[in-house]
C-alpha cells in the first residue's frame, strides 16, 4: 500500500534532484505557443483608445467614423464613464476591432473622445498630499525608549513605483463558438480567470467559458484577472462574431497593466552601544495609484523591537493602478527597514554582520537567520573583505559589502489534480494550473513519476485549461506546495487502485506492494515483481482516474506543506565615485524553502530573483512628469531592465538539511526577490561612506549623495 507521505530523503529518485525543465525543448525550438501566438481563422485585431489626460471628465465618445471605416468589424466604448472622471493617462475609453492590426490602429485614431480636463495629482513624494486618516501602530513606549537610547539614528529613504514589464504583454484572444466563449489569455490563474466580467461582456455563462493558456511570457503578479483588455476583447468577439486578438502595446503595458507601489519613509532608530535595538519610529508614505495602500511592515523581519511607532499615509495619484508585484509590499518594507538598520550599525561604528547577527535575535526565526548570515558571510568572503562604512582604500572606485534579511509565507494553495493510469501503461495528470516559467510542469511530473516509480518521460502533464480540476492561481509562492500535494495524493490513490488489481495475480495483499523502477513489486520480496506495463494491462479496458485534493490547512497539519521562510542576501559592489556608477561584483543568496522538488528550477528562481533585484536596485523606476501626469519612460529603452552585462557573480545556497526538508514544501517565487534592493543599497553605502537614500541607485543619485556627504 502506497502512502502519500513524502518519501524519506534517501528513498527519493527524482524529488530534490537537479532535473531539467520539461518545457525546455519546446521553448528552445520555438514551438511553445504563447497566448500572443494564437492566431484563429478569421481573427480580428483590436486596438485601444485611451485617455490622454491624467484626470478629466469624459464628456463624449464617438466611434461612428471609426466604425464606418472599411475593415472595421466592431467597436466598443465605455459608456459607464460618460460624465464621470477618467483618472490616469492610458485609462481605456474605447476600442475597435478590424481585419488587420494596421486598420485597427488607424481606426482607433478616428475615435473621438471629448474631455473636460481637471486638476490632477501625480506626486507620490510629498506626505502632505495624503488625504486619508493615517494608519498607525504603536507598541511599547517609544518616547521613553528613545530618551534612554545611546544613539538615535534618523534617515529618509525611498523606493519608487516600478512596473512588471512582462515580456509578453497582457491580453488575450477571444472567440465565440457554439455558444461557448474560448479565450487564450496570458494569465497566471487559468482556473479562476473566467470571471463575471468576461461572462457579462460576452453573454456566455461562466461554465461555458473555456480558458486555455499553455505558455505565457511572464506575469510577476500582474496577470490574475482578465483586466479591461480581457473584457473588451470578449465583447468585441461577440459583436463581430469573429475571433479577436487584443494584446497591449508596450507603452500601455508599462503604464496601466501593473505598478508596484512606491514607499518613502522617515525612520528613526534607537539603539544601545552594543547594538541592541530598542525603538523604531517610522513615517511611511507612497502611492498605489488611485487605490491600494502603502507598505507598512516596518520594522521588517526584525519585528520584535520592543518599542515601535508607525504612521502610514497613502497618497492617491492620477497614475496607472497598482498590481501585485512579486512579494507584494515586502521589497519596499525590507529596503526601508534594512537601510535604517545598516545606518544604525554605521552610526555605532559596529561591524554590520555582528550588528545583524544581534538584530535577527529580534525576529521570529533567529536561529535560521543566524545560520544563514554565517553561511552567506563565508560564501562572499566577508571576513577578508569587510570594512566599516566607507572604503578606506584610495582611488576612485570604492568597494563595499551589504546585507539584508527577508521572510515570506509560501503555503501551498488549494489544488485539485486528476491522475489517470491507462491500460497501456501511460499516465497523465491534469490540473487547472499554469506554468509561468517557474517549472510547474516539471514539478508535477517529478512528483507523479516519483510516486509511481516511473521515469519522468512516462508521465504526461496537462495544465493550462480551466476544464481541468481547479487549482489555485500562481501567486504568492503558493503553486509548488499546492500542485505537488494534490498530484501526490492523486497519484498515490491511483497507484493503490492499481495495487488492488495486481495484488491477487502476484499472490499478495495490496499493502505488500510498492512501485519502483518501472515495476510493481513485493516490498519484502522484490523478486516477486511485474513490469508497469504488464501491471496496467491487467486493468483490461478500464483506466484508473483518481482525484487528489490539497486542502492547505489539512496538508500543513500533516506535514506535506508549510509556510514561513527566512533568507539572507549579501552584495559586493564597486562604486566609481567620479562617475557615480555602481556595479555588482557578486551577490550571495542563502534561502530556506523547506523540501525541494527540483533543485535546478528552485535555484533558477533564486538566480532570476537576484538579477531582477539588481534591476530594481540600480535601474528601474516609472518616471512621471508631475505637470502632465504622464509616464515619461513607457518603453523598454528608458524603462531600463538589467541585461546580460549587469549580472556579476551570483552564488545561491539552498538550505537543504533534514530539519528544513522535514517542514514539507514551501514556495520560493517571492522570497529571494525581496532583499536585493536592500543588500545592494547597503553595500553601496558601505562602499562610499554615505547613504544613497533612494532607489534606483542611478549615477546622478550617487553623485548627489556623495556631494551632500562631502565625499566629493
Amino acid at each position, binding site marked *: 500500500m502506497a502512502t502519500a507521505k513524502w518519501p524519506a530523503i534517501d528513498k527519493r529518485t527524482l524529488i530534490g534532484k537537479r532535473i*531539467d525543465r520539461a518545457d525546455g525543448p519546446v521553448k528552445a525550438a520555438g*514551438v511553445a505557443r504563447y497566448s500572443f501566438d494564437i*492566431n484563429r481563422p478569421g481573427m480580428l485585431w483590436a486596438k485601444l483608445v485611451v485617455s490622454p489626460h491624467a484626470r478629466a471628465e469624459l464628456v463624449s465618445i464617438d466611434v461612428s467614423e471609426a466604425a464606418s471605416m472599411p475593415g472595421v468589424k466592431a467597436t466598443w466604448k465605455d459608456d459607464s464613464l460618460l460624465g464621470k472622471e477618467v483618472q490616469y493617462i492610458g485609462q481605456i475609453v474605447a476600442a475597435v476591432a478590424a481585419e*488587420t492590426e494596421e486598420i485597427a490602429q488607424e481606426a482607433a485614431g478616428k475615435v473621438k473622445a471629448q474631455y473636460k480636463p481637471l486638476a490632477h495629482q501625480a506626486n507620490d513624494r510629498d506626505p502632505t498630499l495624503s488625504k486619508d486618516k493615517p494608519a498607525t501602530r504603536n507598541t511599547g513606549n517609544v518616547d521613553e525608549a528613545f530618551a534612554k537610547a545611546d544613539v538615535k539614528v534618523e534617515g529618509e529613504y525611498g523606493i519608487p513605483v516600478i512596473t512588471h*514589464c512582462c*515580456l509578453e504583454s497582457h491580453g488575450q484572444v477571444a472567440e465565440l463558438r457554439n455558444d461557448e466563449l474560448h479565450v487564450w489569455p496570458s494569465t497566471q490563474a487559468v482556473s479562476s480567470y473566467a470571471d463575471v466580467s468576461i461572462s457579462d461582456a460576452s453573454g456566455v455563462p461562466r461554465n461555458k467559458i473555456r480558458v486555455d493558456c499553455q505558455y505565457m511570457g511572464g506575469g510577476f503578479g500582474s496577470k490574475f484577472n482578465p483586466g479591461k483588455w480581457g473584457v473588451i476583447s470578449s465583447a468585441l468577439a461577440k459583436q463581430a462574431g469573429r475571433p479577436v486578438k487584443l494584446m497591449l502595446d508596450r507603452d500601455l503595458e508599462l503604464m496601466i497593466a501593473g505598478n508596484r507601489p512606491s514607499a518613502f519613509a522617515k525612520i528613526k532608530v534607537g539603539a544601545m552601544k552594543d547594538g541592541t535595538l530598542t525603538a523604531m519610529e517610522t513615517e511611511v508614505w507612497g502611492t498605489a495609484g488611485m487605490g491600494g495602500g502603502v507598505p507598512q511592515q516596518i520594522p521588517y523581519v526584525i519585528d520584535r523591537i520592543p518599542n515601535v511607532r508607525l504612521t502610514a499615509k497613502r497618497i492617491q495619484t492620477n497614475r496607472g493602478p497598482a498590481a501585485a508585484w512579486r512579494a507584494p509590499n515586502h521589497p519596499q518594507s525590507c529596503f526601508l527597514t534594512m537601510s535604517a538598520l545598516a545606518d544604525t550599525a554605521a552610526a555605532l561604528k559596529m561591524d554590520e554582520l555582528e550588528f545583524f547577527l544581534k538584530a535577527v535575535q529580534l525576529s521570529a526565526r533567529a536561529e535560521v537567520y543566524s545560520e544563514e548570515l554565517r553561511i552567506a558571510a563565508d560564501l562572499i568572503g566577508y571576513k577578508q573583505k569587510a570594512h566599516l562604512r566607507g572604503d578606506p582604500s584610495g582611488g576612485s572606485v570604492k568597494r563595499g559589502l551589504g546585507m539584508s534579511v527577508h521572510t515570506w509565507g509560501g503555503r501551498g494553495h488549494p489544488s485539485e489534480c486528476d491522475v489517470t493510469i491507462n491500460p497501456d501503461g501511460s499516465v497523465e495528470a491534469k490540473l487547472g494550473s499554469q506554468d509561468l*516559467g517557474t517549472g510547474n510542469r516539471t514539478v508535477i511530473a517529478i512528483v507523479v513519476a516519483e510516486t509511481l516509480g516511473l521515469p519522468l518521460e512516462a508521465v504526461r502533464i496537462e495544465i493550462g485549461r480551466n476544464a481541468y480540476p481547479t487549482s489555485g492561481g500562481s501567486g504568492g509562492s503558493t503553486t509548488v506546495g499546492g500542485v505537488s500535494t494534490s498530484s501526490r495524493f492523486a497519484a498515490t490513490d491511483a497507484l493503490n487502485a492499481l495495487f488492488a488489481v495486481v495484488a491477487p495475480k502476484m499472490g499478495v495483499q495490496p499493502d505488500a506492494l510498492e512501485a519502483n523502477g518501472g515495476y510493481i513489486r513485493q516490498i519484502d520480496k522484490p523478486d516477486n515483481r511485474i513490469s508497469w506495463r504488464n501491471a496496467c494491462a491487467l486493468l483490461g479496458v478500464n483506466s484508473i482516474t483518481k482525484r487528489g485534493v490539497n486542502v492547505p490547512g489539512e496538508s500543513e497539519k500533516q506535514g506535506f506543506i508549510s509556510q514561513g521562510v527566512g533568507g539572507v542576501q549579501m552584495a559586493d559592489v564597486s562604486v566609481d565615485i567620479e562617475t557615480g556608477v555602481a556595479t555588482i561584483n557578486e551577490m550571495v543568496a542563502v534561502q530556506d524553502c523547506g523540501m525541494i522538488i527540483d533543485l535546478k528550477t528552485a535555484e533558477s*528562481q533564486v538566480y532570476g530573483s537576484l538579477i531582477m533585484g539588481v534591476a530594481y536596485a540600480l535601474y528601474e523606476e516609472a518616471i512621471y512628469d508631475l505637470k502632465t501626469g504622464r509616464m515619461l519612460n513607457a518603453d523598454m529603452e528608458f524603462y531600463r531592465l538589467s*541585461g546580460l552585462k549587469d549580472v556579476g557573480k551570483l552564488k545561491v545556497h539552498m538550505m537543504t538539511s533534514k530539519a528544513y526538508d522535514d517542514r514539507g514544501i514551501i514556495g520560493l517565487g517571492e522570497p529571494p526577490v525581496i532583499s536585493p534592493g536592500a543588500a545592494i543599497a547597503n553595500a553601496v553605502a558601505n562602499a562610499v561612506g554615505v547613504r544613497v537614500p533612494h532607489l534606483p541607485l542611478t549615477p546622478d543619485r550617487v553623485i548627489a549623495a556623495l556631494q551632500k556627504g562631502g565625499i566629493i
Partner: protein
Amino acid sequence: MNVNVQFTVNGQLQRLSTDPRRTLLDVLREDLGLTGTKCGCGEGQCRACTVLLDGSPVRSCLTEITEVEGRKVESIEGLGRNGRLHPVQEAFIQEGAMQCGYCVPGMIVATVGLLRRNPKPTQTQILDALNGNLCRCCGYGNILKAVQRAVRSVAPAESATSSRTGNPK
C-alpha cells in the same frame, strides 16, 4: 495599397502581396504561422523578435516587409537540421537557460548569428552581442552558460550548416 514581396524563409521561397506598413515580424507570425519569433516590445528595444537576415541578426519588428525583398530570412523554426535541433538550442535546453521562455527564440537566434560571424567569441564579445536581448525573468546566468556551452560545441556543426544553407538545392 498592397505590394508584392518575394523572399526566402528558412530556405523556402515566399511570395506575398501585403500592406507595406507591415513588418517582417507580422508576416512571419501571422501569414506564415511562424510564431516562434516573438513580439516583445514591438519597437526594437527587447530583441525578442530577432531573426537572421542574410545571416545577420536583425529586429524583425523594425524591419519593414519591403526591406526583405530578394533576401534570406532565418527564424528559430529554421535552425535545426535533419530533424535535430541546432546545437545552440540544445545548449539552452541542457543549461535550463529559460524561465517563461519568451525571450529564448530571440536569444538563440542572436547567438547563432554571433557564432556565424565569430565562432570563438570571448566572454566580452558574448556580452556585447547579447546585452540587448532582454529577459524579464532574468535567467541571464544560465543563458550565459548556455552560450558558452554552445561556443564549445557549435563551431564545427555551425560551419557545416552554413555551407549547406549556402548551397540551396
